[in-house]
């Protein structure tokens, strides 16, 4: 590159930067023009490491602060999750700090619930109010009557406070509404979860199978990075999806599977691999349990059997199955993440686990590795009080394989008062109204409560129903718990403030601590300040806090992660082996080998409602972020081009969706496309906000959640299958 003359440099400055701002900027940043002109590394630009919170992936961030104001966010090159490259949401995290719609002060409800009419109060008033209510709930109903719904690492201290208070009812929608069935399916088979970040060795996979997982649109940073890396290295990609996803466009085989029939396809794939003896016989002989019974069970699940069910041609099933076997054990059938679809989800996930087991990919390079961590000791708190009532969500172990708390179980208990009443909800960073199926049921449950507290950064729908809303600092303005990650490379990372909160927001650790003090739980918060807590824990682990603060990340030595490298091939199942045939399932009256039952068909004129993710948004939580809303400010309903033509619709036309229960969506634009089957419609989750405070997002696009009035509960683990709603398309005007 040429060396730079002074004159040239000045010209560039004037050219690319411009001077004083008059236009509508995303954020006002007077210091930055000069900072850019002088370039990065200038002493005016401060760089501070932290980790991201726009989703739960927790990528390492280097925040650039110019003249005391947040300028931009880049990936931390030392971070193995991001490898120095954030996803669009992480890069756009700037908009969370500058969000003009964010919560600014504690709010106390003024009129009836859901009216979103508030009185601004001080933190002291708000916390006193909550503590008072919680004490009266405790004395009247016991501490178990208070439940916490929490999402993400930010909730750790609130969880701690609630546990100290005596409640065992702490749940996250990530189990029963998201990844639960997958973890149960894999536990039943391998005795272990897939965990998060998923232990998928995508980078080294030679064949990647995605079934209902739209990697790329689903922007889990490390996975997408490794997916692209694998594609570059020539990996064979096989995609089964009712929609021609981004991943499908990278695939050698695209299987346009009929929604609801994935299990049939999985069984047919396994049938091919078993009958053609393409499986890893040695691996199965060494680690498998009940293979013979399994093989006998799936003998009838031929591709020809699957064809009328799935709509996927037998030849396509055979060829793709053979390709999977060709690359084993470096063939990864991705377990997906959001897998609550039809109520048979744990069994479907188990089928995915079994297909992986057949190919010997668990514990092998290019399959599923064994994650490692830095083993940092926790803080030595006094033991939590024991509840004799037990958890409320799963009475009599109705769902025998639920190993986490079921959110919808707590909702059910709140509604019915059995097995015991729930009188208070605390909701942290999860918009329950969009996260749980059947909004009306959630609202009915809320009406049974004596107290609903919402801690959040934005005035979401659930905040609108709260009695008290506590405004949390955005992740860029606060410390959070240390992230001691289980990953391919072990590491510890820190979230620390890079800028100040603009108003009266507080970090969750402070909120949790102040509440605990008011509840008389001071023993559980022996530290005054979170940095004291960090110092203590890190010192206990033999690490230096200052070093972590400066680098954002402390990395540990790479440990063995495959069987080949010395990871012991031990499985936490009853048999201690990979269970092709599950006796514990049989014991509870379930199919020991998954069996397929076709789901109900849409009535004539109806389409199955499918939903998914967009790379620029997280759940329903990023729709006030102006940077990200500039990327995508409404969702569209995908309608097959031929269907659209038949209905007289073209792209851009506005329609409303109406479900079987008569619920009508917001107005939404049609995307008439070849990229979807004729029997379903698709929309990106998280749009169609109704909360008054979400000024920028309100009324943009339609909400799938609103239309998900029906759900089928997974009998194994209580997950809510949500792709069971059918809609008609109502033309507007």
């Amino acid at each position: 590159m040429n060396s730079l003359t002074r004159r040239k440099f000045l010209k560039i400055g004037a050219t690319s930067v411009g001077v004083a701002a008059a236009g509508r900027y995303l954020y006002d940043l007077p210091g930055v023009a000069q900072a850019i002109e002088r370039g990065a590394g200038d002493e005016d630009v401060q760089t501070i490491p932290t980790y991201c919170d726009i989703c739960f992936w927790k990528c390492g961030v280097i925040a650039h602060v110019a003249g005391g104001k947040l300028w931009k966010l880049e990936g931390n090159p030392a971070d193995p999750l991001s490898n120095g490259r954030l996803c669009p949401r992480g890069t756009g995290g700037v908009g969370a700090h500058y969000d003009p719609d964010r919560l600014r002060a504690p709010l106390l409800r003024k009129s009836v619930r859901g009216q979103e009419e508030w009185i601004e109060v001080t933190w002291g008033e708000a916390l006193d109010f909550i503590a008072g209510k919680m004490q009266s709930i405790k004395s009247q109903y016991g501490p178990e009557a208070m439940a916490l719904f929490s999402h993400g690492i930010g909730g750790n201290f609130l969880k701690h406070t609630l546990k100290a208070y005596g409640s065992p009812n702490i749940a996250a929608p990530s189990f029963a509404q998201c990844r639960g069935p997958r973890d149960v399916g894999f536990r039943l088979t391998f005795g272990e979860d897939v965990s998060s970040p998923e232990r998928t060795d995508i980078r080294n996979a030679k064949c990647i199978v995605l079934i209902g997982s739209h990697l790329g649109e689903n922007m889990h940073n490390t996975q997408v990075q490794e997916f692209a890396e694998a594609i570059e290295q020539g990996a064979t990609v096989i995609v089964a999806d009712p929609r021609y996803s981004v991943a499908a466009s990278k695939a050698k085989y695209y299987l346009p599977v009929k929604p609801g029939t994935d299990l049939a396809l999985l069984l047919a794939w396994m049938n091919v691999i078993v009958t053609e003896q393409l499986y890893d016989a040695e691996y199965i002989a060494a680690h498998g349990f009940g293979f013979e019974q399994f093989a006998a069970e799936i003998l009838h699940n031929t591709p020809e059997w699957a064809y009328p069910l799935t709509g996927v041609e037998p030849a396509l099933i055979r060829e793709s199955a053979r390709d999977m076997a060709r690359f084993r054990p470096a063939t990864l059938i991705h377990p997906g993440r959001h897998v609550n679809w039809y109520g048979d989800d744990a069994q479907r996930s188990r089928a995915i686990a079994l297909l992986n087991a057949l190919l010997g990919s668990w514990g092998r390079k290019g399959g599923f590795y064994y994650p490692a961590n830095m083993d940092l000791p926790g803080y030595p708190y006094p033991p939590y009080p024991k509840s004799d009532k037990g958890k409320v969500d799963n009475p009599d172990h109705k769902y025998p394989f639920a190993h986490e708390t079921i959110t919808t179980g707590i909702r059910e208990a709140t509604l019915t008062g059995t097995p015991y009443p729930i009188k208070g909800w605390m909701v942290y960073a999860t918009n329950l109204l969009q996260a749980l199926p059947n909004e009306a049921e959630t609202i009915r449950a809320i009406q049974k409560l004596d107290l609903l507290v919402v801690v959040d950064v934005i005035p979401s729908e659930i905040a609108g129903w709260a009695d008290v809303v506590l405004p949390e600092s955005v992740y860029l303005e606060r410390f959070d718990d240390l992230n001691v990650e289980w990953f391919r490379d072990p590491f510890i990372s820190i979230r620390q403030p890079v800028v100040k909160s603009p108003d009266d927001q507080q970090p969750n650790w402070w909120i949790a601590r102040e509440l605990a003090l008011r509840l008389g739980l001071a023993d559980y918060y022996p530290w005054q300040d979170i940095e004291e807590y960090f110092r203590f824990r890190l010192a206990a682990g033999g690490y230096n806090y200052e070093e972590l603060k400066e680098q954002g990340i402390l990395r540990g030595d790479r440990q063995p992660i495959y069987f080949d490298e010395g990871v012991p091939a031990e499985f936490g199942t009853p048999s201690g082996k990979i269970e092709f045939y599950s006796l514990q399932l049989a014991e509870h009256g379930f199919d020991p080998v998954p069996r397929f039952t076709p789901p109900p068909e849409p009535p004539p004129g109806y389409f199955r409602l499918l939903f998914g993710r967009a790379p620029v948004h997280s759940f329903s939580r990023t729709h006030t972020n102006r940077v990200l809303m500039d990327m995508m400010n409404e969702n569209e309903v995908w309608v097959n081009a031929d269907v659209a033509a038949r209905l007289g619709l073209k792209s851009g036309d506005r329609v409303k969706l109406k479900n079987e229960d008569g619920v009508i969506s917001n107005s939404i634009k049609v995307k008439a496309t070849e990229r979807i089957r004729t029997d379903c419609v698709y929309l990106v989750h998280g749009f169609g906000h109704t909360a008054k405070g979400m000024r920028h997002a309100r009324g943009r696009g339609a909400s799938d959640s609103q239309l998900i009035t029906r759900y089928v509960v997974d009998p194994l683990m209580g997950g809510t299958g949500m792709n069971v709603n059918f809609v008609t398309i109502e033309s507007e005007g």
Partner: protein
Amino acid sequence: MPELTSTRMNPLLDPALHIWGWEIPVYLFLGGLVAGMMLISGYLIFSGRYRERTQCACYQVPTISLLLLTLGMLALFLDLEHKGFTWRLYTTFELTSPMSWGAWILLLVYPAIAVLLLLRAPDAWGAKWHGWLRPVLVWSSTLRENPSAVRAIGVLNMLLGGMLGMYTGVLLSAVGARPLWNSAILWLLFLVSGASSAAALVHMIAQDRDERELLAKADNGFLVLELFVIALYLIGLVSSTSAHQQAASLLLSGTYAPVFWVFVVMAGILLPLIVQILAVQHKVKHTAIPPLLVLFGGLVLRFVIVYAGQTSHWIPVTAAALR
């Protein structure tokens, strides 16, 4: 056809280019009109007619030209988005930029018209001129005594008028990105249209009968020529690339076809042409209606070309598919 979607959403560009509003067509029309008037007045001066006629149109035209040109420039100025930097036009001359040529031509056009105006000064305001303006009058009187200088002024006006008229077309035709404009004949269309509009206007306001007749005849000529150029323009587009064909279809059968055929071709050219042919044959009376129609047609032509041109594109981006 492939399904094409774009995430871009920039104002004035998406879903379709619309960077120029009413200001530019109005400016192009007025510029063309003034160009035509310069041709006419330049010719009248050059030919020496002004000496035979006490009420030569060449005496009124420059005043109107200056007024219209100033209005046009005002429209142009209104269109600029960074008005404070307009002076930057005159710190450089950009050889490849028609806009730069135009800026400089306009700078020359003003004095050329002004000189034309001054030729009449002794007659019009002679008695009233006094004080410091006196020397101008003296200079002007001297100038009038020099026939070759007067002829040169006529030629200068015709030349600059021609350049002004052509440049308004080149301004658009140089834009390769918009197939409808990207025709090498557009300058001729705008020049001829400018000339016909000017002839119509002068014909309407001329006080001298012979001149009125002469301009009506000239206008008829220009109108016939304009029809011919429009035909060639469309043939040129249709026989070019598919992008150009698509662009032509905007005028032939698309969104802009009704306006183009009804207001530009029928009402703006054919109808006034027929009436004016009858008028010069003294079969009907001269009225202001045909020239007004010609002027109106000329204005609509600029609107149609500017607006339709902005929707013509190399990529068939489906507007509805945009976000």
